[in-house]
């Protein structure tokens, strides 16, 4: 029997990037752009052409997940989503329980389209609530109110089999008690999947510029941020959602299959401006990427038949680094044997021993997992273990 390729330990998924938003949020460093007019027909043709091109390389594979991310994919016409999913289904076989997720904003306009997405084949909605109080929503540059957010959540849950909600915490001037209240009011509605991110100040964002100028005040200090993270885990655990990843909490069985493909280092196709992919072709694993600018990408697809920028070959060391970096985020952790097979060498023994002794890591046979304290120091651990 043929030895399975490494990526098969993670599965195969497809990511499609919609690069437009109504407005740019001050914290967001994703590839999103604001345009007054978007010709959805042009975009449909380009996406379909790119799907055809991707299928030529990976056509035989079985697809575990499709993810419409952005930007704000809930600005896509449901007919565009339908055409894309139709083309995908012609190129790849689906796993029986394929997950098809679309990211949505909870404004009333977008909520009106939920049924259309459902009809087009979307079976999971990821709703960007971000906060549940109006002051903070405004500071985060969001276009919706807390009331709209909760209404959209209710509508989504009655429309889709599976719904996830995003919140951002460790916001400016947020207290531990205020966050507890907000999180509990969300959990009261009985979600089975939450993505709860601590606010990160990124370069190239409005917040980043403010922070650089020393004008972003009221961010929590390290002790408060740690306390918030620890409390978040406890509250979610109490509500039956476990932290299966650094910032993701789910009732068992409701984990995001799509994101698990990333964290388990499967293969994924990236379609659309700025989308990244990982493809194992023959014996070589590639990192793929595309033009980030929407118009440049569109023109490249139309004129050259490809939106891709040159591929990077991932050498064994880089693959091993990515595997460690991604898998150690998960509660299931890293398989030491898989790391060794990829890198051809062992994890740094001294660092491993120190982290085990220091209560930052736990080893269970072939599995390496972070403890709660270790998870908070993950970047540092990955650096030590892989150096």
């Amino acid at each position, binding site marked *: 029997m043929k030895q399975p390729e490494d990526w098969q330990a993670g599965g195969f998924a497809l*990511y499609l*990037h919609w690069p437009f938003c109504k407005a740019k949020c001050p914290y967001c460093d*994703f*590839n999103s752009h604001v345009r007054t007019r978007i010709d959805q027909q042009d975009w449909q043709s380009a996406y379909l052409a790119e799907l055809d091109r991707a299928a030529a390389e990976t056509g035989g594979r079985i697809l575990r997940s499709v993810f419409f*991310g952005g930007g704000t994919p809930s600005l896509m016409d449901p007919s565009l989503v339908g055409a894309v999913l139709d083309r995908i289904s012609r190129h790849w076989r689906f796993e029986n329980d394929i997950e098809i997720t679309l990211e949505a904003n909870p404004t009333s306009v977008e909520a009106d389209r939920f049924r259309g997405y459902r009809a087009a084949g979307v079976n999971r909605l990821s709703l960007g609530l971000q906060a549940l109080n109006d002051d903070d929503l405004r500071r985060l540059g969001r276009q919706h109110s807390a009331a709209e957010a909760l209404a959209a959540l209710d509508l989504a849950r009655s429309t889709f089999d599976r719904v996830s909600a995003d919140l951002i915490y460790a916001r400016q001037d947020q207290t531990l008690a205020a966050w507890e209240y907000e999180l509990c009011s969300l959990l009261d509605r009985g979600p089975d999947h939450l993505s709860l*991110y*601590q*606010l*990160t100040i990124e370069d190239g964002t409005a917040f980043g510029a403010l922070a650089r100028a020393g004008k972003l005040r009221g961010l929590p200090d*390290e*002790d408060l*941020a*740690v306390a918030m*993270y620890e409390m978040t885990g406890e509250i979610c655990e109490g509500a039956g959602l476990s932290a299966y990843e*650094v*910032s993701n909490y789910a009732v068992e069985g409701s984990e995001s299959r799509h*994101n698990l*493909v*990333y964290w388990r280092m499967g293969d*994924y196709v*990236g379609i659309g401006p*700025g*989308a*990244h*992919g*990982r493809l194992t072709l023959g014996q070589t694993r590639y*990192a793929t*990427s595309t033009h980030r600018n929407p118009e440049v990408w569109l023109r490249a697809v139309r004129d050259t038949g490809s939106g891709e920028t040159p591929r*990077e070959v991932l050498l064994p060391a*880089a693959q091993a*680094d*990515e595997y460690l*970096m*991604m898998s150690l*985020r998960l509660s299931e952790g890293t398989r030491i044997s898989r790391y060794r097979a990829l890198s051809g060498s062992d994890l740094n023994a001294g660092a491993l021993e*120190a*982290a085990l002794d*220091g209560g*930052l890591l736990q080893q269970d046979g072939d599995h390496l997992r972070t403890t709660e*304290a270790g*998870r*908070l*120091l*993950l*970047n*540092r*651990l*990955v*650096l*030590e273990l*892989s*150096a």
Partner: protein
Amino acid sequence: MTDLSLIRNFSIVAHIDHGKSTLADRLIQSTGTVADRDMKAQLLDSMDIERERGITIKANTVRIDYPARDGKTYVLNLIDTPGHVDFAYEVSRSMRAVEGSLLVVDASQGVEAQTLANVYQALDAGHEIVPVLNKIDLPAADPDRVKANIEDVIGLDASDAIPISAKTGLGIPDVLEAIVTRLPAPKGDRDAPLKAMLVDSWYDPYLGVVVMIRVMDGVIRKGDQIKMMQTGARYGIDRLAVLTPKMTDIAELGPGEIGVFTASIKQVRDTRVGDTITHERKPCAEALPGFKPAQPVVFCGLFPVDAADFESLRDAIEKLALNDASFSYEMETSAALGFGFRCGFLGLLHLEVVRERLEREFDLDLITTAPSVVYHLHMKDGSVIDLHNPADMPDVTYIDHIEEPRIKATIMVPDEYLGDILKLCQDRRGIQLNLTYAGNRAMVEYDLPLNEVVFDFYDRLKSVTKGYASFDYHLTGYREDNLVKMSILVNAEPVDALSMLVHRDRAEARGRMMCEKLKELIPRHMFQIPIQAAIGAKVIARETISAMRKDVTAKCYGGDATRKRKLLDKQKEGKKRMRQFGKVEIPQTAFISALKMDG
């Protein structure tokens, strides 16, 4: 062969920035020795570092033909000497090769400490001295005040000092004329056996070792078989030349003349400055007095930032040493820094110059450890050990007492800064010897321990006086004091590169300062790190670096993997610039920054 009466040999004594090199350039240029188009600013300072920093490190020489107002053409030999205290020995031997000096003083600033030391050397060598007031064109120039200053401070008649501007060329003909009329011609006997002084030597990659000589008696010719009287080495002269300033071959050199030769000498170490050169067959009866070889007084470790560069460092050091006999080195191993060299220097500037040359000319990144002086350890068994490196200190129970080198420092400073200077010297365990005034400038002399000066005394001096103080020193000898070895422990591990000898009374303060600095310099780790200063087993200062609690990326999905991996690669690069110490990583820059002491 030039008639003795038509030769004038001279040097220029000046403080840094007072215009010595510019004046030298002007003299060369105005006599047409170098074509205008070949004129490079500060012609004699040939090393990059010399030209950039405006200092002279090695003695340089140039021969100038000057048609004087009396209708005769004179040969003027200028030996350009270093101005810095570290190179005082170069100055002293250069002075012995000439009969007179131009004393150049900035007409707006007056005499500085280094000038003073060099003038005294010139007077010791029996020189006739012509004072020259430079920068006379500047609005701030005050020639009368500065003349009075020269008379007060040096005790030299400055009434006929020549006012010039080396920059504009004003007064240059008067200087040339004064060299001929006011400086004495050399003496010597052409028919006596050859007696020449070895003034300097340097390594040239094409010619090998070039030896600069001053002929006292007799004549030296190409092809002659010569003997170095001190070393006993014998050589045949391959090439004989004068420097104009490029090497111009000459058939012979007679008494009073200065020139260079090559003789298949492999390294500078084979020549001894001050040695007497004579003919093998017909030697002179008596050698010249000679000089004491210069002894390194400041030591420090030089380590490559990248351990893989050790061999390149060895090559570079060996090459530099070819040309600098005053610089010593031996291999050293440090637990913190790996393989490197313990190097000895004439002073801090010498250290800095060598370090800079290694980095610049050989493209090396270096870590320099704390400069240390040479301590004399008097052991209980009666033996005496020279300690160059605090890390090598033997167990204190075997030591009877420790002596440290002391210096006599001369500082000249405008009186408004005097208070700061006195405080600085007092803080550095100084003993005031003398305090005098000349106009509004004070001159103070202090007896100071050299180890208090090697850290950053000069930097502090410059900063408390906004650059208006000048400083000079010479070693006076060794004295016993209450010295202890202070170790620095990071996470309970001693860091050898940071240990130092300090005075017992200063140990707490210095230990505290060191711990505080390291607390800032060592990044947080995943665990808490104690930093301690200790004498033996006794902890005298302590700081703690708290543990890092959170460093995790909130969002990391498929689109983030590439960017995060590249960030990881960058962090790994950064890690390479850290030195592993037990479980703790210390950035290399921390070693350098921690050792820069202030206060």
